[in-house]
């Protein structure tokens, strides 16, 4: 089990649920699970188990609801000796052990899949290459796309499961026409819908997110009620495989550090940096630049060029009025050109109004109608209608019409 730096003291589940304001009877919980799963009791379902409390709670809740549950854990990478004992990772070998122990405690079957090759190719190599050419990639989205929505879905189907449930905080329902509708999780601090946009319609009908309407405190309470041994485990966070290092160190370890120039918008060199992977568009501190005239205002990273040059400029230069997304996918039918929706460019960022200007099979150009700053290339741009995810893609450019802007390729 992942060792926590400061273990939480165990508390009675009755206290946890009282604090969470969840006084429901188990029968109500079971009824909710059946509704979310859309399957009768006894149906075979797979749970993607990471070893954390969320997916463990899902497995326990589905067992309680009478399903034939089995757990799947993907082993994604080898242990980084520096990260042993460090909380905040997921899917490391010790997490696979946690998942197995939870499964055994619940009396369900559990299988660990060796997906190190797929993960290295589809997630780590892309992460390194994207960072190296100046993008700021989001490996969690890529991991969901390939590992969860392809590998685990395929495995679950191959093993005869009628659905694959995960511990994500997002709501997933079918509309009257049987089309999946992905919505934000109800816990605003946990909403993970941003990372789930590569969900296509086919996978969207197979996958279930039983925690979408739950708050984290309820999940902890019910995990404890059902005797889940990792109910006290700390949150996972950060890029899991980077573990104890920073993205810059990680990318440098794979590609070698690539120092470069720091220039202003006019191209004048202001300084040097040790490698672009250490910087994100919108970053203000840590540039190591000599002090300049205070009336000019603070300088921000506004672009990271493939040649390794970092461009800095005033805050206004981070503004974008046109955003292009590549590798786009829609969960349902693509909305027509002219549709107004909301664009979110980072997890927990604010969605800003935007309009579809051009639409192609796997890309879209958006006119930003609100204030959008620091939309870094490589990040996901997710398109919402209210709390519903319509689709999303990877930001390929973010520009200020009639001017220079951050993220310009």
């Amino acid at each position, binding site marked *: 089990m992942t060792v926590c730096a400061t273990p939480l003291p165990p508390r009675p589940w009755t206290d946890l649920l009282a604090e969470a304001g969840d006084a429901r009877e188990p029968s109500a919980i079971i009824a909710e699970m059946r509704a979310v799963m859309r399957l009768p009791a006894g149906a075979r379902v797979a749970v993607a188990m990471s070893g954390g409390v969320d997916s463990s709670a899902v497995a326990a809740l589905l067992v309680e609801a009478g399903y034939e549950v089995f757990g799947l854990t993907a082993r994604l990478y080898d242990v980084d000796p520096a990260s042993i004992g460090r909380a905040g990772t997921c899917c490391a070998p010790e997490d696979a052990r946690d998942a*197995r122990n939870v499964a055994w405690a619940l009396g369900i079957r559990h299988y660990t899949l060796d997906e190190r090759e797929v993960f290295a190719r589809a997630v780590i190599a892309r992460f390194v290459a994207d960072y190296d050419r100046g993008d700021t990639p989001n490996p969690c989205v890529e991991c969901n796309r390939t590992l969860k929505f392809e590998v685990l879905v*395929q495995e679950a189907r191959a093993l*005869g499961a009628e659905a694959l449930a995960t511990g994500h905080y997002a709501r997933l329902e079918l509309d009257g026409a049987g089309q999946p509708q992905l919505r934000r999780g109800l816990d605003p601090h946990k909403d993970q819908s941003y990372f789930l946009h590569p969900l296509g319609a086919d996978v969207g009908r197979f996958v279930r997110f039983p925690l979408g309407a739950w708050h984290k405190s309820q999940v902890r309470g019910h995990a404890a009620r059902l005797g889940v041994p990792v109910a006290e485990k700390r949150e996972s966070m950060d890029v899991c495989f980077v573990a104890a290092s920073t993205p810059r160190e990680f990318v440098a370890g794979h590609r070698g550090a690539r120092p470069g120039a720091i220039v202003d918008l006019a191209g004048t060199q202001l300084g040097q940096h040790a490698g672009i992977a250490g910087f994100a568009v919108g970053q203000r501190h840590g540039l190591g630049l000599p002090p300049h005239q205070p009336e000019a205002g603070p300088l921000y990273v506004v672009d990271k060029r493939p040649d390794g040059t970092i461009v800095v400029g005033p805050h206004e230069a981070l503004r974008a009025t046109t955003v292009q997304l590549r590798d786009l996918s829609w969960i349902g039918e693509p909305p027509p050109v002219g549709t107004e929706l909301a664009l979110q460019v980072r997890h927990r960022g604010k969605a800003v109004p935007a309009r579809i200007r051009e639409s192609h099979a796997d890309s879209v150009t958006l006119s930003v109608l609100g204030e959008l700053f620091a939309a870094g290339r490589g990040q996901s741009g997710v398109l919402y209608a209210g709390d519903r995810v319509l689709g999303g893609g990877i930001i390929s450019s973010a520009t200020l019409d009639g001017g220079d802007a951050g993220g310009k390729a």
Partner: protein
Amino acid sequence: MIYLDANATTPLGAPARDAMTAAMAQFFGNPSSLHGRGQAGRAQLEHARQTVLAAVGGAGGKIVLTSGATEANALAWHGVLADRRQRHAVRVVTSAVEHPSIGALAAQLRTSGVEVIAVPVDAQGRLDMRAYAAALAEPTTLVSIMAVQNELGGIYPLAELARLAHQAGAVFHTDATQAPGRIPLNFHGMGVDLASLSAHKAGGPAGVGALWLRKGQRVTPLVAGHQEDGLRGGTENLLGIIGMAAAFAGLSQQLSGMAQVRVLRDRLWRGLVAAAGPLTRNGDVAPEDETGHVLNVAWPGVDGARLVRSLDLEDVCVSSGAACASGTQEPSHVLLACGHAPAEARAGLRFSLSAATTPAEIDEVIALMPRVLARGRRPAS
């Protein structure tokens, strides 16, 4: 539950279970104690030793009881090499398809600079006899070739292998873990010098095994202590040993049931070909060159480990080449040694039957397989 994984372990047979249950109530003496309780334990121990010795045709030899075949393998290798090393440089010849416990010994010795030759096998897992003879052209200390291949069921010609090893001046060891009850054993007559045995592949309990030594064969102990004639220290696992002896007392009976096991195994193969083809067979050799209880097959493009999981969810226990609970899934080293590409080696699926297998179970698996395969095939992408 349909259990077709007898090469991983067999369920505890009635003779072993009954003998152990009775012993649990009766014997608690330490066989090294001088008093009556100790003497009663010692009597059981020696009786068990003689039973095992007789069951493997080990007349005149010695049985050193161990925690299992892995320890017996280590005692054979390290024990022979340590004994010789004081006087000579050492060199080992083994095969490319040995059990991982032998593979680990080979790797360990190579790290310390000992030359270990792994003799290749052909596409069906038969030992390359020309390469074997060539390997023995240089002075060799120890030869170690398994008796029955655990993934394929192939039988290796121990008598011939031992004769050639002796001609080269080497000591001949065999890991005979999968042999008892599956093929007739006569270590003495076959010319074997050391043989590793395990109880739990023949209806005995796990955690107990033995190393058989030809009369006069010396080994240096791994664990110092006066027990087992000074060859293996530590208070004896009397209950386990009694269970092993009870199981081994019935080896000839198990052996006589093998003809029926072979009938079922062939029924499984024909049934799968008819109902769930196309599939290929690994270790397809003449009937006299295999035990008749193993069926190793591959459905092209279908991951064997996935089939194991899929069958497990239908309560059918089988095995792929080499599964590991820690989540690393390496292709079977045996199928790789047979010349298969890694992707082909990952497709391997092993059914290993026992006398407890019934025709109804075989028919159920045949009927189940098309459905499991239909949902298990990876899409063309």
